[in-house]
């Protein structure tokens, strides 16, 4: 049976397809370009001949990047920061968000604006550095990546609204049955909050995966670097030519840069399609108070 589609509908579908195609193209092209570059010869890239597919196909660049010891070390660091940081951040956020979600606690009127304040104003780079590196004595420590920015206010507010949405009666019932505050939190609230915890994990993981500034400012030795900082060094190095210095060597090749970027963004790109629904859900979750 042939379904008849009206003319206006046809026009709509075609326009829709074209617009969506453009959107997809604009989003995907940088990746395609990067991949094409990483598999091309350096000469072809330098002459600007590569656009959609590799020219003078080669995998030597990947062999080169994968043969570097530091690549694996930085990768291992990133994985460590990702996992440890996510654990600390999610735990910290949940512990702070829970009491803040209780409107009967009077001091919340002070603490909530106090937290929100940090979303809009910060101490600036140097005061932060003094605080973390000198006063907390975290200079060149892996903890300087995990602790100072552990709780993001935005995530905190999302979690707080989610907790407020949970029925108060559940907790009251548990309290009557003799459960203390901590057991209620651990045994009732946390199991009920799996969706928001999943979202938080994702938010924090992606954030930590891409984080380069905190490692850059607080770490003094390269063996603690995450891979993002290394990629930044490669990419920025190509854009930032030193003027007039005596003994500098030539630029790192664009192909190596591209291959490294492909390799470091690969895990997140692979994971993303499976978890992207949480990203969207996470933003709206708790937005409507039950």
């Amino acid at each position, binding site marked *: 049976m042939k379904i008849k589609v009206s003319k206006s509908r046809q026009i709509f579908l075609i326009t829709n397809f074209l617009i969506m195609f453009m959107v997809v193209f604009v989003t995907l092209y940088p990746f395609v370009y990067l991949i094409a570059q990483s598999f091309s010869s350096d000469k072809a890239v*330098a002459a600007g001949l590569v656009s959609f597919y590799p020219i003078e196909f080669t995998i030597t660049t990947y062999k080169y990047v994968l043969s570097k010891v530091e690549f694996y070390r930085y990768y291992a660091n990133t994985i460590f920061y990702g996992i440890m940081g996510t654990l600390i951040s999610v735990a910290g956020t949940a512990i702070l968000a829970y009491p803040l979600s209780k409107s009967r606690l009077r001091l919340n*009127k002070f603490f909530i*604006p106090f937290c929100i304040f940090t979303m809009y104003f910060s101490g600036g780079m140097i005061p932060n*550095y003094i605080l973390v590196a000198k006063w907390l004595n975290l200079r060149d420590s892996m903890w300087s990546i995990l602790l100072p920015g552990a709780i993001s206010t935005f995530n905190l507010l999302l979690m707080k609204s989610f907790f407020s949405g949970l029925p108060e009666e559940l907790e009251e019932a548990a309290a009557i049955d003799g459960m203390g505050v901590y057991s209620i939190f651990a045994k009732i609230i946390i199991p009920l909050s799996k969706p928001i915890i999943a979202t938080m994990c994702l938010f924090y993981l992606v954030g930590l995966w891409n984080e380069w500034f905190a490692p850059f400012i607080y770490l003094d*030795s*390269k063996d603690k670097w995450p891979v993002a900082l290394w990629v930044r*060094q490669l990419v920025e190095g190509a854009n930032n030519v030193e003027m007039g210095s005596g003994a500098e*060597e030539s630029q790192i090749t664009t192909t190596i840069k591209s291959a490294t970027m492909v390799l470091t963004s690969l895990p997140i790109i692979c994971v993303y399609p499976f978890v992207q629904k949480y990203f969207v859900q996470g933003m709206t979750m708790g937005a409507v108070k039950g």
Partner: protein
Amino acid sequence: MTKKMVAVLLTVSMVTGLMGCGASSKNTLADQTSDTQEGSTQAQGNEEYTFGADKTFYSDEPVSYSMLFSDHENYPYKEDWLLWQAIEEKTNVTFDLTLVARTDYEDKKSALVNSGSAPYIIPKTYDEAPYVASGQIVPISDWVQYMPNYQKCVQDWGMEEDLKQKLKDDGKYYVLPGMWESQGGGYSMIIRKDIFDAAGVDVETLEKNWTWEEFYDALKQVKEYTGAPYVWSDQYQGSCALNLAAVEYGVKAGRSSDGGDWGLQNAVKFDWDKMEFSFVDTSDKFKEFLSFFHKMYTEGIVDSETYTQDIDAAREKFFRGESYVLTANYQQLSDMIKNEKMQDENASLYMVTPPGGPMGNLRTELSRLENGIMISQNALDELGEEGFIKMLRFVDWLWYSNEGQTLSLWGVEGTTYTVEDSKIVLNPDIYFNGINPDGTKKLNIDYGFGGGVFAYGGTEELRASKMTEEEKNFTERVNNNREPQKIDPPILANEDETEEMELIRVPLTDYINTMTLSFITGTADLDADWDEYVKNCESKGSTKYIEKANEIFSKTKSILGY
């Protein structure tokens, strides 16, 4: 209630913050003066280490100094570099390094210095001015008398005039600059010699004393021969080329859209006859300069995209063989040859001597000074005066003695290089800077030598030793055919004056830069709009700026020795 609490909290934190600032700056000032006064009397005869001009520094006890290290992405730091081992063997000194990626070096330096946690030695400083006010940097000119090799460089090479560039309004300088006995070749134009030859342009004869006008004639000939839409498509948005020409026209120009200042600076030059500063970018010389580039633009010699395109786009055109001229330095040329970047395998590349102009055939490379080393106040506070002077003498050996400079650049004799007929010969299996293109190891990547943190500065011989035959040839051509230009004295403004002048300079030079490009590309007309341009510069404070500069000059010329 909440509002009140927040207000109280803010006030308290502000007041404590302010008190903190005041207290710390007072202390450091007091410390500085007292330490300096004692410094010249004590610290002599401290002999638990050997030092001296042309004498190897050696500490009897092992010592470690903290240092900031700019990590270059092309030769990333390695713990097992022979460099570290060689320094330790010679001097018994090791470094406690704070590693920072080169690209973000300034940000980290700023955080460390301003928070008072800077390592003792802070190398690779191009501009020390932002750090001076923090009180965290030692005024090193008070201490250079303890540095015999440094003193020797200054005297033997006559560096006094060059060092004046580094003075601040208190008559002191805060950085130990790298010093070369003579200038390098600097930037110039790489040309496609095969095409120029085919077009009948005899570059090698012409370049000896050619002017920009003659360079234009040569390019025109190439354009006629090739029939190409343009022959020159430049990188750095043309600003490097503008600077090269500006020197020869006696004006200031060249600032790229990414903010890289190639030569525009403050649009002011010093008039040595009248002994005063003058504003050159509203002069007739500037008009002549602009009309020259306008001509190149309208006649299709220069690519119309030159002034807007990014670096890669310009290089791509050159590598593809669509343009035949590119401004660059010699390292870039070596890189193009080594990595076979040209699509046309028969392409032959040649770096020409930069053309001269109405002001004569001047060298475009100005200074013999390089980036330098700042010493943190922490070193003085923590090491005490004797220890501080000892550290300075180590710095003196490593960066200013011929032995230290040779070590930093070439490594260890017998391991990385040999000396034949008193000339340094790199081992054939090691590649560096275009030398031994077939070498399997790299001097900077595998050994740590020849890196930007240590290896800059030295004698003319040392400078020549790291050049390929072609580069030596280029440097010789520049040295033989070009006159050095006289360096303008610095404007020794204090903090308030600097701020006042910056408020004029930034919008004024932005305007000049925009108008330079407008005049060149023809969006503004050189005849019709020129008076308007001069008037606008005036209203943006060009005269006021000059008056201020001259006032400061007459006030401080005794410091400068005029």
